[in-house]
């Protein structure tokens, strides 16, 4: 039995294959062309185009005032972006790597997240913080982390992560258009993977609020976001070969979480596995599990299982594939929930 596959772009003839990084680049370009207040800030994002080349060509196209190579100071990047936003700009900050966001953590959590609230709604802070995150590229320490739960725990921030090239293109534009601050986590291990991208999709705000069923199924709901979406889809494919029908949900956003979409699926399947690269303990999967348990208590046939990072610092590159949730580890949990 092979489960039918649905994605947002599968049947779109206008979609052309584009690597994930190029899709974000195209999204940034479109947002900058649409609104002259959109500007990019970060380390090495000008002539170099960023260490992952996501901003390649943009400084040449839009000038140094709109694509700003900043001093190497993350708090400075976020803090000045807040000031620019107060002046009416829409800064998009690039944090070079996940592990380097922490010098900016104070500005993000004590200032950026709270200023709209403190001002009783008078001030909007449309700041996007792009963070290449998660592992799989054989990097050194501090270059492969998944700190998204730390930000999802902070009211006032939106936290999202695209799981497909199409969403990367659409979501970056919707994040930039959003009047609230958005943490935009880019699965760096997927930057070079191609996916179908339709450059003419309308820009609404749906992707920041709505999860998407990336593959339909009937036996188990497999919840993922960002880098684990592709792994989950491969796991579902492998499970299908063994006659197990796995429904894959790409959350897109972990704050706010689209609980309804997950619950609707679990009410149907009765089983749920959540996977992410972030540390399992106190991770986004725990929130998904709690919500699913609360709302699907009578439909659940098995406890909700989590497949995530172990409770240790991100390991050395030679061992990272023991740490990152793999197809086999995910399938192991799928088998375990089916065994109840």
């Amino acid at each position: 039995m092979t489960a039918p596959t649905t994605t947002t772009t599968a049947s779109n003839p206008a979609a052309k294959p584009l690597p994930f990084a190029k899709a974000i680049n195209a999204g940034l370009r479109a947002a900058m062309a649409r609104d002259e207040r959109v500007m990019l800030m970060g380390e090495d994002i000008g002539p170099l185009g960023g260490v992952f080349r996501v901003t390649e060509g943009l400084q040449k196209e839009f000038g140094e005032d709109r694509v700003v190579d900043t001093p190497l100071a993350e708090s400075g990047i976020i803090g000045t972006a807040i000031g620019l936003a107060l002046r009416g700009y829409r800064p998009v900050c690039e944090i070079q790597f996940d592990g380097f966001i922490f010098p900016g953590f104070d500005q993000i959590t004590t200032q950026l997240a709270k200023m709209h609230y403190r001002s009783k709604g008078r001030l909007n802070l449309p700041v996007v913080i792009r963070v290449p995150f998660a592992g799989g590229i054989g990097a050194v320490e501090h270059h492969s982390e998944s700190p998204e739960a730390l930000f999802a725990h902070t009211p006032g921030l939106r936290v999202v992560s695209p799981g497909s090239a199409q969403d990367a293109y659409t979501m970056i534009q919707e994040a930039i258009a959003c009047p609230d601050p958005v943490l935009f986590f880019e699965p760096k291990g997927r930057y070079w993977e191609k996916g179908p991208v339709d450059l003419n999709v309308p820009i609404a705000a749906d992707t920041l609020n709505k999860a998407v069923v990336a593959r339909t199924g009937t036996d188990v709901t497999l919840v993922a976001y960002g880098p684990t979406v592709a792994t989950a889809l491969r796991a579902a494919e492998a499970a299908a070969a063994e006659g197990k029908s796995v429904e894959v949900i790409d959350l897109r956003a972990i704050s706010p979480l689209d609980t309804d979409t997950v619950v609707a699926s679990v009410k149907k399947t009765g089983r749920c596995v959540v996977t992410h690269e972030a540390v399992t303990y106190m991770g986004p999967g725990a929130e998904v599990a709690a919500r699913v348990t609360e709302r699907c208590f009578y439909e659940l046939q098995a406890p909700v299982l989590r497949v995530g990072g172990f409770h240790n610092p991100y390991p050395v590159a030679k061992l990272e594939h023991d740490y990152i949730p793999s197809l086999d580890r995910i399938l192991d949990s799928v088998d375990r929930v089916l065994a109840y």
Partner: protein
Amino acid sequence: MTDLLSTPSLSSTDEHAPLQLIDPQGHRVITQENEALRAHAASLTLEDLRTFYKDMMLARRFDGEATALQRQGELALYAPLLGQEAAQIGSGHALRPTDMVFPSYREHGVAHTRGMDLATILQLFRGVDHGGWDSFEHNFHLYTLVIGSHALHATGYAMGLQRDAKAGRAAGDEAVMVYFGDGATSQGDVSEALGFAAVNNAPVVFFVQNNQWAISVPNSKQFKAPLYTRGEGFGVPGIRVDGNDVLASFAAAHWALEHARSGNGPVLIEALTYRMGAHTTSDDPTKYRTREEEQFWRERDPIIRVKALLEAEGAWSETDETALAAELEGFGEYIRGYVKSLGRPSSASIFEHVYATENALVSEDRQWFSQYEASFMDTTGGAQ
């Protein structure tokens, strides 16, 4: 105007002596060293100086009223500016309405010079809001409690001004002034702000009120080199003025703002003053500083010297003083009445303005809370 920086501004006896225009006894100080600074106060009339004095007296009255209200349990907390009136009123009057101010949390005097109704500040200290006034009504941003954070916001705002001027969205002569204290200079954000401001040549003035105490921690435990030199390594020039001297504070700010708005980049001012009161109403300075030290600075009270100068120059009379006292009495009554009129915000307001857009997590909480509240109602609709 760079000659102020190049003058041997600092007296021969103490190379770090702050520039002064009025001495503690109320005499005008006219020296070769302060010539360039004096030029920036030259436009001030005695009428201006009378305004400064009245504003300083009002700020002090505000402090007194707010402190008493805290002691009566009407305010949860209060952060006095006692002793810093000259630095704040002087520098505040050097600003233009189109300039933008990023205050710390003790800048009630500056707020007054911007035209803010000081009573609204007490909403924050009463615990009915987080100080959510309109940042742009008087170009006076919200207070920032995480010290030093706003130095970066000010710098970013100044970067925005530069872009707006280029695009014709601003006149190009606006500047930004950010206020923080000696304690904040130890924060990395202040250093990052100096760096970002310098490389962007941003029109921002860093106004440091060195009141010598960061709660209980003295200058000697915060830094070794004088604060006015802090910007030098970043390429941000600095000057040190007597922050208890309202004229020197005005002139320094006037010079710095002119420097910034003319495209010459950021400047740092150290206004050397003294926190005559406690850090906040929760603090107890008797635990960490001496009566002698407090007495030394009481004799250098910034208000005494302005009044002495005005009297000596025939610009202030007993009648003026009586009229001012009556005015301040009315102000005090207004403050007390305003604070006591502030009721408890509605519980449901907790959930307002978390996000600018509809957010499922907030909606969920709001809905749960309202159902929870409703569960305490009896069937006839009255509270049980």
